[in-house]
């Protein structure tokens, strides 16, 4: 059997990758994808802990996270389309009207 620590370490690596990509990447879609990666790392953590504690609660939580992530994606992609319509670009460095 694979020890639980392996899953947790994998999840931690995925989460850190997501955070790093969020900070480094310049395309809004890629940034959005890195957020999804972070959420999936959380899901993996939940499933691993649910297995460890023998509790179904953790697995139910995963469903909630997925549903909410889908709702968020719907709104997020709509906003991204609105950005593209007004600006013709999805590069965050060029989306800089709001400065003092």
């Amino acid at each position, binding site marked *: 059997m694979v020890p639980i620590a392996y899953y947790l370490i994998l999840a931690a690596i995925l989460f850190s990758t997501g955070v790093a990509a969020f900070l480094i990447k310049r395309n809004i879609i890629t940034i959005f994808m890195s957020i999804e990666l972070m959420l999936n790392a959380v899901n993996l953590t939940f499933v691993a802990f649910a297995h460890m504690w023998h509790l179904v609660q953790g697995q139910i939580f995963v469903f909630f996270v997925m549903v909410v992530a889908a709702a968020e994606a719907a709104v997020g992609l709509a*906003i991204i389309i609105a950005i593209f319509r*007004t600006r013709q670009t999805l590069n965050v460095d060029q*989306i800089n009207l*709001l400065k*003092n």
Partner: protein
Amino acid sequence: MPTLSPNILALLPEYILTIAGVIIMLAEPCLKPGASRKPLGWIAIFGTLLAGAASWFQLGYGTVHAFSGNIQTDAFSVFFHLLIAAVVLVTLLGSLDYFDGNATHAGEYFALALFGAVGMMLMTCSVELLMVFVGLEISSIATYIMAGFRKGQATASESSIKYFLLGSFATAFFLYGIALAFGATGSTSISAIAAGLGSTATPRLAFTALAMMLIGLGFKVSAAPFHVWTPDVYQGAPAPVVGLMSTAPKAAAFAVLLRITFSGFPTMQHRWSILIWILAALSMTVGNLGALLQRDVKRMLAYSSIAHAGYLLVAFTAFPIEAISSAAFYTAAYAAMNVGAFAVITQIGGFHETLRTLDDYRGLASHRPALAGVFAFFLLSLIGIPFTGGFFGKFYVFSAAIGSGHIWLAVIGLLNSGIACFYYLCLLAAVYSKPTAETESVASSAKITLPALAGLTIATVATLVLGILPGNTLWLAHYAGTATMIEDARHQCTAHPDNCHMQVRMEIR
């Protein structure tokens, strides 16, 4: 009293708001495209009033548990429910005429405001982190859309995307914290986490979980160093929306933070209070120093809201009951004055926000004296001048911090209040200076409509009453703190029956 099923009673305000929101969504397509959306706005206002009344009604029932212990309605949740309902009411009144003559989906705006309020209210009465997360997302998604409501404008959609990306980023941290807390204690219920902390084999994991949740909520309340999104988002979003999202979601996030720290991790207070100490000191300093450099009024108030988040965090370092009651009172005072200030900015700027910078505000007093007077009052309250809500808010927070020995934090806070005077007074000086030829030409002569006047009056009276007669609010805030502590003690009793004689007696009394 007639017996009401706890599952209905505990979420009564949320039900009312949801029904009102759904009615608006259904009615919107039935109206003619060019027709006024004001009737929908009145439905929203009526629903909010009803929801506020329902929360007040809940107070008489004491602490109610519903949905297998996931929802806990007590004085604490009622306090924040009333606060959120009041903020949404002022925002709706202020934005009733905001969309006139502009082709926007005003009906959806009213529905979104209500759905957002449902999410915020759900956050304050949930004692299960899963429910807190769902509430947080409901409120966030609604506010993401509202931030970009002036769809054609590039700044609006930019503000919306920044809010969305940073908000989801924060949510992921919050969720990771919940996952780790689940791993450390085997539960996601706040009281079960508190009970599980005593026997956990991995206290370090539990503390990491708390730190992650602190990061997530730190973003939501825009505490430094998690504040970077605030100025940009507030600058680009429509003024009435900023008034809403700088107060109500923050109040809800602070309520969650109070619940998690004081009810969920009480045995670790000596450790997390250090983190919060740093957050508070940084937020106050960064917020006030940042505001000094701003020329855009909304941006300046965004930095001021970061500073106010810092003052609020000072309360967390105090003893539980004082901390909860002073933090609750401060959120109420801050909500009243900030939502009022943004209601004034809505009136000054109008839909297209032609007046933005300090220079544009020059001479406001000469052509709109009443509006300038009200604005001055809110700014004085934000400074913390006596006879305003801001003064008592700061007073209780700092005295709570001093009472628990955090004198240095109070000193930093007071120094920051001094710095804050400067930029608020700069703005005031601009408002009361002689108008230049340019500002004369762009000054709008639009009259304040009756609903907007009502909204402004509510905010002004609330700020004034909190400054002169804070007794009632303070009583409710204190009751909220005591009720939370008693409930925690009861949970501790059920978890460890051997050592709880004291707590049982406290509950009976």
